[in-house]
């Protein structure tokens, strides 16, 4: 197997069909009334909102925009509205600044200089809003995590990752870009640098320390059981870089799994109670 960019190429028409079919099937079986997406205006959430609208009709999809003053970006808001208008789904905007400030004030040990802890509050607060809408209007929460970020553990546990379905979680970031292009997400949304917008100026590639084009090929190699040395040689990168990414991948598995408990009885939740994912 050669680790070249074309290995990530898929038949985007077929992927579009498969993902929208997946969303529609789960939606139909769940007997819910719609889908709510936390819509940041970034590529992942815009793509998922569009796929949801294509799958079940825009009239049943709500893009919930949840900006706050520290990271407010007028361009993101504009992009979210642009895509909603183009694909005919609804948006609602709630400024969550006051909620966040109330949280910060009420935590006696709150340290504003700890950006990660503070940023996680933002992601989890957005989750609460999105799930409130889902509960209130009997809707599904559609998550927008992609495979690159999920494998890297680059998300907030119980925050942005929390959802009922995650339709693009098996697509790397560079693949999401291609799918987005295929389904007609506007170019300016696809082209702008990704950011979880947890603090001002946060950029995913800067934080991960690698460009997605390279990261995705490394992760693809890992996915296809290639050894560290082989990936490093093929991509002409230091073995230490692959080791570092592999360590990050393995050490964040706790963020991707259901709760772990001590094995005591016959069958245990999350371990060997093996049931179907019954959405109805």
């Amino acid at each position, binding site marked *: 197997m050669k680790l070249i960019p074309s290995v990530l190429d898929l038949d985007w028409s077929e992927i579009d069909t498969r993902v929208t*079919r997946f969303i529609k099937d789960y939606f139909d079986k769940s007997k819910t009334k719609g889908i709510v997406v936390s819509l940041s205006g970034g590529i992942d959430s815009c793509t998922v909102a569009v796929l949801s609208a294509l799958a079940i009709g825009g009239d049943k999809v709500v893009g919930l925009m949840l900006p706050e003053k520290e990271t407010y970006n007028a361009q993101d808001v504009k992009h979210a509205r642009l895509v909603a208008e183009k694909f005919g789904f609804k948006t609602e905007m709630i400024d969550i600044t006051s909620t966040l400030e109330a949280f910060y004030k009420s935590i006696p040990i709150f340290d504003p200089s700890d950006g990660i802890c503070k940023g996680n509050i933002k992601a989890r607060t957005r989750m609460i809003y999105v799930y409130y809408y889902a509960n209130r209007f009997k809707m599904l929460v559609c998550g927008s995590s992609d495979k690159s970020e999920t494998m890297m553990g680059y998300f907030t546990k119980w925050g942005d990752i929390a959802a009922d379905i995650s339709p693009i979680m098996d697509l790397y970031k560079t693949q999401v870009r291609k799918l987005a292009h295929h389904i007609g997400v506007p170019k300016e949304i696809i082209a702008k640098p990704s950011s979880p917008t947890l603090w001002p100026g946060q950029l995913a590639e800067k934080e991960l320390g690698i460009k997605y084009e390279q990261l995705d090929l490394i992760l693809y190699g890992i996915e296809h059981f290639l050894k560290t040395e082989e990936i490093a040689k093929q991509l002409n990168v230091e073995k230490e870089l692959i080791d570092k990414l592999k360590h990050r991948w393995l050490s964040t598995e706790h963020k991707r799994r259901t709760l772990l408990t001590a094995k005591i009885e016959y069958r245990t939740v999350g371990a060997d109670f*093996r*049931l*179907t*994912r*019954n959405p109805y």
Partner: protein
Amino acid sequence: MKEKIKLALAQISCKQANKTENIKKIEKIVTKAKSQAAELVIFPELSLTGYVVRDQIYELAETIPGPSTNILENIARKTKTHIVFGMPEVSEKTHATLYNTAVLVGPKGFIGKYRKMYLPTHSVFEEKRYFRPGYQTVAFDTELGKIGLIICYDIFFPEVSRLTRLEGAQLIVCISASPAVRRMFFETLTVARAMENAAFLAYVNLVGIEDGLQFWGGSRLIGPQGKILAKAKYDEEDLVIGEVDYADIRPVEAFVPTLKDIRPELFDKLKESAEKL
């Protein structure tokens, strides 16, 4: 035995863990296929229960013959058709020893069953966790010809189809629950198994989505020369009728005599090498 038969590739989606609903669907489709002159109606692997049922399988499994096969036998009697379908089987001698089984019933009742030999337990598959493998290939003498049964992943192992053919099967029925990522393998292997054995091969795959697994359908009837004689749609439920003309086997078997040229001594060598792998 008939020289020509019409069979139906009954490509359905199933309700997970809902035998009543699935039997209703099977009955409806058998009736429809019969109205199109089908004499044999073939349903996918585990079509009685759906493929992804996980621990519920212990409650769903039945002996064969048993309650569900009795119902299917009655449908076969009533419609005067032969039916192949898949179900989880529990051994009569134990309480939780299960098999992934294909069943053949006909207008005169139960004809026979085949227990899947190769149980995929990798990637998203966990069949060995639940099932015990079968140990016997089958080929049943019926009024529709000598029919062999295999199941899904068995097709990756040419010896299963070959043994089935050597037992006399002229029509190999392969029922399947194959997700979309495996499509290329099956599209190639189904043709190869038909050609190398100079036999007809009817492949019937599941459709629908079960726990995120999207089954790709694409059921087909392949002739001994490798020609696709009938093909169902991808990804959607479909019912397609195809004709098997057993007279087509002889010219192919004479032209590329793969059965005449079998070298039994190589199988001893194969066994030796496989044991040392």
